[in-house]
């Protein structure tokens, strides 16, 4: 892939006693759509603000395009931010809002006019030049905020939960809009969200964060299919996380039975966590399953049925297109490739820090 554009080296930031980012390392490549994903309070927004120049890190360096930009004020950084609550200038019209950065840079009137028209077209809001921000809906304001940022042709666009305040349908539309924009502009997007679906849909790379630590970096597929720890597994999508024992390579004991899997290198008779996605559990005739269980709940979800199955005192979450009424006895089978084995954290701190392989 292309070069590193931003290198984040050993960044630490704390408020009072509270450590928000701890020795964080991360790099962002040119033209990448990178998403910082994590629950609120995980430090993702703080990291974004440090990149934007609104907060100074306690220690560590931000390298942008090979240069250290630690002490560069926000107005001299080649990145622009789309704020969570848009932060439009309420005393200016839409056109004035968009023109703000360009006027500061001393661009000509004609150039500015062209840019405004171009940007409004890009966000599908032609003709909104003379409206005021408070006459716009949330989604429209959001798009203006993006337009205002991109007319400055930044190398990186920082987006801080930009869709958080929108309703579901609008959010989905805007996701496609953002992907389209990114492709048209060909610049780097650094996106912050706590919505895993949003992250999976849009990103090239996802960085899962928790309590100031990076938990896992990878493509959406990696993150979803091979979570490296229980936190990631739990945070991304629905999953059954089960206490298990690695009997030997490729053999795991869980749910009171012995299963075949594909993971190796955990040692013999070691306690581990096993993750099975609900859609990966196959419900079959009782005899054909490795273990047996009883369906206790069932909900129709449109695409599939969501069921809870009680097996050997474990409640398993199962997604299936086949329907099994409550009380049905079923057999349970899992493909060895669909069992993901993870090391158990030994302390809470380690759990937060994630496991480095």
């Amino acid at each position: 892939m292309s070069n590193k554009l931003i290198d984040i080296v050993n960044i630490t930031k704390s408020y009072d006693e509270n450590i928000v980012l701890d020795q964080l390392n991360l790099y962002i490549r040119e033209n990448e759509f990178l998403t910082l994903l994590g629950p609120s309070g995980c430090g993702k927004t703080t990291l974004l603000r440090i990149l934007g120049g609104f907060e100074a890190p306690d220690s560590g360096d931000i390298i942008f395009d090979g240069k250290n930009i630690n002490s560069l004020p926000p107005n001299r950084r080649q990145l622009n931010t789309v704020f969570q609550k848009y932060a439009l200038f309420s005393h200016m019209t839409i056109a004035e809002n968009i023109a703000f950065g360009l006027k500061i840079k001393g661009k000509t009137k004609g150039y500015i006019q062209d840019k405004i028209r171009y940007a409004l077209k890009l966000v599908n809001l032609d003709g909104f030049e003379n409206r005021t921000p408070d006459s716009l809906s949330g989604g429209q304001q959001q798009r203006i905020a993006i337009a205002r940022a991109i007319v400055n042709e930044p190398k990186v666009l920082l987006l801080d939960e930009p869709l958080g305040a929108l309703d579901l349908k609008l959010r989905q539309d805007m996701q496609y809009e953002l992907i389209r924009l990114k492709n048209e502009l060909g610049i780097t997007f650094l996106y912050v969200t706590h919505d895993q679906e949003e992250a999976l849909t849009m990103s090239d790379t996802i960085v899962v964060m928790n309590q100031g630590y990076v938990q896992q970096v990878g493509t959406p597929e990696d993150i979803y299919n091979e979570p490296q720890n229980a936190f990631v597994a739990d945070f991304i999508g629905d999953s059954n996380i089960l206490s298990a024992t690695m009997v030997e390579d490729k053999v795991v004991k869980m749910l009171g039975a012995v299963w075949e899997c594909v993971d190796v290198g955990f040692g013999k008779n070691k306690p581990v966590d096993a993750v099975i996605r609900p859609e990966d559990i196959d419900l079959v005739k009782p005899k054909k399953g490795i273990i047996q269980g009883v369906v206790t709940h069932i909900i129709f979800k449109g695409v599939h049925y969501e069921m809870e199955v009680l097996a050997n005192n474990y409640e398993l979450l199962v997604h299936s297109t086949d329907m099994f009424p409550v009380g049905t006895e079923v057999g349970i089978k899992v493909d060895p490739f669909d069992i993901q084995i993870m090391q158990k954290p030994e302390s809470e701190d380690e759990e937060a820090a994630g496991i480095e392989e």
Partner: protein
Amino acid sequence: MKSRKLLTGPYLFWAVSFIIIPLLMIVYYGLTDKEGNFTLQNLAQITTPENMKALGLALLLSFISTIICLVLAYPLAMILSEKNVNQSSFIVLIFILPMWMNSLLRTIAWQNLLEKNGIINSVLGFFHLPAQGLINTPYAIVLGMVYNFLPFMVLPIYNVLAKIDKDVIFAARDLGANNLQTFTRIILPLSVPGIISGITMVFVPSLTTFVISDLLGGSKILLIGNVIEQEFKQGSNWNTGSGLSLVLMIFIIVSMALIAKYDKDGEGTAF
């Protein structure tokens, strides 16, 4: 819902009895002579040279005081809004606490500070600087106005500044504005409602004061407030006094209109 509206009843009754009707009384007295006949004579009183002078001087001094208050208050409000100081403790310190020492007494204390042998001149003398003749001059009155009304300028400006979303300022910085540009293009325009309401809240009481000019001007300097006060309390000429008050109210109404125009949401109010 209906019954909730009725709760306004007592207040509306009160407001009509003690706000509206009294103002109409001033209009009535202002437009009639002692026998109760209609006349514009009272309004015309404002054009006598003495009254014009008093009005002109009041306008000038209150204008200067307002400007000084604005210049002093804006940086103060900015510093405080940046500092994330606990708002209530600040308001208390600047605004509520001094009020528990009577404002007349505090103004009188300025006499002690400003007098020929007063404290300020003693300090100046200590540094071998020339003594200043401050007391009983227009400067002393301006000082008194600034002193008394400064909090009324600080509060509304502070309130709007504190309400500005920090992200809006960050956004301006992010889009390339330096500190000065951020101030002139974003912060200043956004604080206009506070400034307007601050200006009104300083200008109106300064324009109409008679106490400050009395206490710090040595009765040498007559402002329009003094003229009106004397018409009522000494001249017993209520008609002329009311007439002059009506003229004064024109300035007040202009101020109120300004507030209504620039501060539609009431965000610039001091309280």
